[in-house]
């Protein structure tokens, strides 16, 4: 707790002293009478001042929420000394704001009494917040001293990035042996019809196609595509980002990754994560709701950490990148180390798709005073980087702020279909 004198104390003490001395100097008792109330208030205030001691408990109604979600914060204050006047302000980190409830709240607390305050807090940006602390600025009865104390206990609140609605996601070229929702390219037990073939010993009777059998006069059976799951690795390039005020490419990367992870996990696919940047972070592919929380928690820790050390894909543990996994890279394509790693992955036979989180909206434009020639050269260089991926058979599509992620995914799917046709 800190205690400071209020301007009132200095002013009243000064006025009292000045009035009394002036009364003596000028021989005018009226001046002493004028100064007397200020001396009286000062003396009373000094005699009656008691330092308040607050005990507090703060609680949240949720440990996690999504961007734009609201959580209720309740604070209980108890004071053994009467506090006639106090301002209670919730300590808010950047990105959080009070949407309901007075902040600061003007309260009084009786001696030995408790007071409950409640606020609703909205977090505009994903991340991990420490909330629950408040600052109490109280005054004594006559307002001569100001006491400031932090109350409450900061508690972590995780704000998850809001996920976009996706109609479809990228289908990997290969599936895994476990059951899932993706129709495999190979044939086996499943639902989707694949082809007809003559009956062989051991085929089940239920697989006989009776129409084809009746037409040909010999037994034909249906071949089916099995439903399998896939392995998807979300690859976040966090070497550098382009940022403008409160938005940047990292925000878009995290939102896209959260959206894709949620969608793939809903389809019973195994999803892994590689955060490739100044700090390397990874999650081996797994499925289920727990993996979803793991991924989102890992995404909350994603940050741009400046590093000049060269890193290639060998630093990523082998089990993080299972064979035949689809690697969806979310990158602003600004750092050569990430580009080299993605190229390396492709050359190792991984199914790679690059969604370029465009840094162009966050960069200065020629309208803002940037050299138009420099801007043009930069854009050409970015186009060349995408073309280099295309030449490797890797779809690289640009996704910009305020565009639907679905459009980028459809563009990647279109590229993959076109590449598939070209191979034929």
């Amino acid at each position, binding site marked *: 707790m800190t*205690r*400071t*004198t*209020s*301007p*009132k*104390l*200095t*002013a*009243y*003490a*000064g*006025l*009292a*002293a*000045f*009035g*009394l*001395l002036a*009364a*003596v100097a000028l021989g*005018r*008792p*009226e*001046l*002493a*009478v*004028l*100064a*007397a*109330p*200020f*001396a*009286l*208030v*000062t*003396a009373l205030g*000094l005699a009656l*001042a008691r330092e308040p001691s607050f005990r507090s408990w703060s609680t949240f109604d949720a440990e996690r929420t999504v961007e734009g979600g609201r959580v209720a914060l309740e604070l209980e204050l108890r004071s053994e000394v009467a506090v*006639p*006047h106090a*301002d*209670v*302000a919730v300590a808010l980190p950047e990105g959080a704001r009070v949407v309901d*409830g*007075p*902040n*600061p*709240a*003007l*309260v*009084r607390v009786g001696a030995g009494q408790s*007071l409950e*305050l409640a606020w609703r807090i909205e977090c505009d940006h994903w991340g991990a917040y420490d909330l629950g602390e408040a600052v109490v600025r109280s*005054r004594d*009865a*006559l*307002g*001569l*001293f100001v006491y400031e104390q932090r109350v409450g206990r900061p508690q972590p609140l995780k704000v998850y990035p809001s996920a976009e609605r996706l109609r479809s996601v990228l289908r990997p070229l290969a599936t895994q042996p476990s059951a899932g929702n993706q129709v495999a390219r190979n044939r086996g037990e499943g639902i989707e019809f694949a082809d007809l073939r003559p009956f062989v010993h051991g085929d089940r009777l239920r697989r006989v196609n009776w129409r084809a059998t009746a037409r040909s006069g010999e037994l034909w059976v249906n071949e089916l595509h099995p439903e399998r799951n896939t392995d998807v690795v979300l690859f976040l390039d966090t070497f550098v980002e382009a940022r403008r005020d409160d938005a940047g490419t990292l925000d878009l990367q995290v939102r896209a990754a959260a959206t894709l992870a949620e969608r793939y996990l809903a389809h019973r696919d195994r999803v892994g994560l590689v955060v490739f940047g100044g700090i390397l972070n990874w999650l081996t592919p797994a499925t289920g709701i727990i993996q979803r929380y793991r991924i989102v928690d890992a995404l909350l820790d994603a940050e741009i950490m400046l590093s000049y050390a060269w890193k290639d894909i060998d630093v990523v543990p082998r089990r993080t990148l299972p064979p035949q996994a689809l690697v969806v890279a979310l990158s602003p394509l600004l750092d050569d180390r990430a580009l080299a790693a993605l190229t390396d992955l492709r050359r190792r036979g991984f199914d790679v798709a690059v969604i370029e989180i465009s840094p162009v909206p966050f960069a200065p434009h020629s309208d803002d005073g940037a050299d138009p020639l420099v801007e043009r050269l930069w854009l050409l260089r970015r186009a060349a980087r995408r073309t280099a991926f295309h030449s490797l058979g890797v779809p690289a599509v640009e996704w910009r702020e305020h565009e639907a992620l679905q459009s980028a995914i459809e563009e990647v799917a279109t590229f993959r279909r076109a590449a598939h046709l070209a191979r034929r």
Partner: protein
Amino acid sequence: MLAAAVVGACAVAGAGELALLATGLTAAGTAVLAAGLWRGRPIVVPWVLLALGGAAAASFAEGGDPARTPLFAAGLLAVGELSYWSLETRLGRPAVGGIAARRLALLSGLVAGSIALGAVLVSVARVDAGGGLVLESAGVAAAVALAAAVLALSRRAA
């Protein structure tokens, strides 16, 4: 603001030949108070009280009724308290009821107490206790000691 204007107007009314000086001090004090409250600057309050006190002193210089002095003193205290109240509560919104009522009651008590104290002081000043160097020295010593005690207490408390 209103309290300051009332105190100033009373001072001007009793200032006689010094009415111009009292008017100037009142106008300046009220204007500075308005600006200070508008900008949220508590530093202006003592200067405003000094100006209004000067206006009140001008009315006594012309041989005004000493019985009015406690009323002026209480008025000045009310101006100071209301000004600081206005400056302290401009950010917070009340979360519980009764804060304003309690503070108003406290302010009324202070004003009443200062009137009573002033009345006692005025009646003491009317008593002719004679004069002389010894009494004058005792008065100076008492005033200095009181001022020093208040300042020392406030400094120690800070």
